[in-house]
């Protein structure tokens, strides 16, 4: 991991992009990192485009501004691809991670000429299968962790379970569903990472 990793989340109000950013900050803190997780609010209403941010660093973080040249971008709602230039400022060598049922090849034309790495995860399907409802932020959190490598897999699952146990102390019945959602998304992205690496090697 480089000294500081900067991540920008795009979502719509009510989908939990902010919560995902705060949870990522939480688990990264538990692995000994300096962290920031913060939202940027536009109009306060369900469905409006929102942005949230993470800085995860080996050293203390002093900057308090939004992130314009992120290392990674997470898109929690694929309909934003039509209205928001999600890869704006994305650093070369970074990646965009998109919640969609489409393949990487199918979404790339929507990315306004972006040439870098793209990973897709069907967070909606995973959430509906494991949680019975569409909470795309939980699978997206696992996908972002897998792609960015801000912590190893074992630490992530250990710390996120601890975090859920605290967060859902009053409704522990939802913990296992959330863990399954994370595991499914992490596995899907691991497969895609592997597949893309193979494609690059054979190219």
């Amino acid at each position, binding site marked *: 991991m480089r000294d500081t990793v900067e991540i920008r989340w795009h979502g719509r109000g009510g989908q939990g992009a902010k919560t995902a950013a705060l949870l990522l900050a939480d688990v990264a803190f538990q692995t000994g990192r300096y962290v*920031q997780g*913060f939202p940027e609010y536009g109009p306060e209403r369900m469905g409006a485009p929102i942005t949230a941010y993470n800085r995860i660093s080996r050293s203390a*973080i*002093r*900057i*308090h501004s939004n992130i314009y040249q992120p290392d990674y971008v997470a898109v929690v709602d694929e309909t934003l691809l039509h209205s928001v230039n999600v890869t704006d400022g994305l650093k070369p060598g970074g990646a965009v991670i998109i919640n969609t049922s489409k393949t990487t090849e199918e979404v790339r034309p929507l990315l306004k000429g972006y040439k870098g790495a793209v990973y897709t995860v069907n967070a909606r399907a995973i959430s509906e299968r494991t949680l019975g409802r569409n909470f795309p932020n939980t699978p997206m959190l696992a996908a972002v962790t897998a792609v960015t490598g801000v912590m190893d897999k074992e630490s992530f699952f250990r710390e996120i379970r601890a975090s859920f146990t605290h967060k859902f102390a009053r409704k522990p019945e939802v913990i296992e569903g959330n863990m399954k959602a994370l595991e499914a998304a992490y596995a899907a992205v691991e497969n895609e990472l592997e597949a893309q690496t193979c494609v690059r090697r054979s190219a």
Partner: protein
Amino acid sequence: MNHFERDSETAVKKSREIRDRMSGNEAVAHAIRQIDPDVMPAFPITPSTEIPQMVSTFIANGEIGTEFIPVESEHSAMSAAIGAEAAGARTITATSSAGLALMWEELLLAASNRLPVVLALVNRTLSGPININCDHSDGMGARDTGWIQIYAENNQEAYDNYIQAFPIAEDPRVHLPVMICQDGFITSHAVENISLLEDEAVKAFVGQYDPEEFLLNPGKPVSVGPYAISDYSMEAKKAQEDAMERAGSVILETADRFCRISGRQYGFFEEYRTEDADYVLLLMGSAAGTAKAAVDRLREQGVRAGVIKLRVFRPFPAAELAEAVRRTGCKALAILDRCESYNGVGGPLGSEVTQALYRAKVYTETVNYIYGLAGRDFTVDHVFGIVDELQAVAEGRCKAPDHKYIGLRS
């Protein structure tokens, strides 16, 4: 227990460091839980709503014994705070923006009746256009209400300043209300690392509130908020001003005592890499962190830049600030306001700092920048632009603009 008895052995014992992560609002709520004040009247307003919300949860869970008064407006919140504090109860509240504006009349009453209420202000712009994001126009609007004002760069400072507020406000030499300010959303809603103190260390540091005079004291009746004819009103106001002047040394004493339990030293302001600086930025709040990060990068390129972060705005440390600017020997100084005064010549910090410099005969070039209004982002690139302009001014390539906006859409 009076102020001096707070300085017992337990109060100066260094606390164990508890590493955690939380938002600025959580940090203030955590401090409130540790202090366990007597009364909290509050009315919710973004972005400070989480503070009374979290405190209500602590009360509901039986973690603290604070009496929460749900009121119908901020006007009532400050009125209830004044009543509770006058009755002898340690009283707090929290608000933002229009909420503080609606308290205006009572802010003056709290200060002039010398009631040490502690208010957590989560800075948000005032309307209009209506907007929920950060600038300092709410706090600056209350700058002449007689409250002590202390500003924070991050969640750590919001927590540390909040704990120090009580010994400052309640000191018999001061007896003034304190506003502990932090930037709305930028720090209030940002989860960051923080070093917390042990509950016992905070309790010992803050001590028991034992006011010398209070309403519910049959042995020593007092009158609060009486009418005063012109024969006496002016003396009362001068006595209040004297208390504000005395607050300066109490703020520094409290900072030294806080350092003994926390290891973190505070003052009126922080000087960051200013020793040999040619170009200095003077500002308050979260933007100071961004400015420090930018200064580090400029120094790597050989540009000698520095930052003075003002922490205590009321009382205004005019002589000390001017001396700090003189010490840098800087060629040009940028004074940054996150607020507009609508006077045609600059912001409040710009006016007060240049006055301080003139009185101390420090005649360096200054530029007053207005930035970050209504949540407009302030970045390291903005700092680079400011330092470029200061260089041009110092080298005589351009005349110093007296009042200039940063980050405005073209």
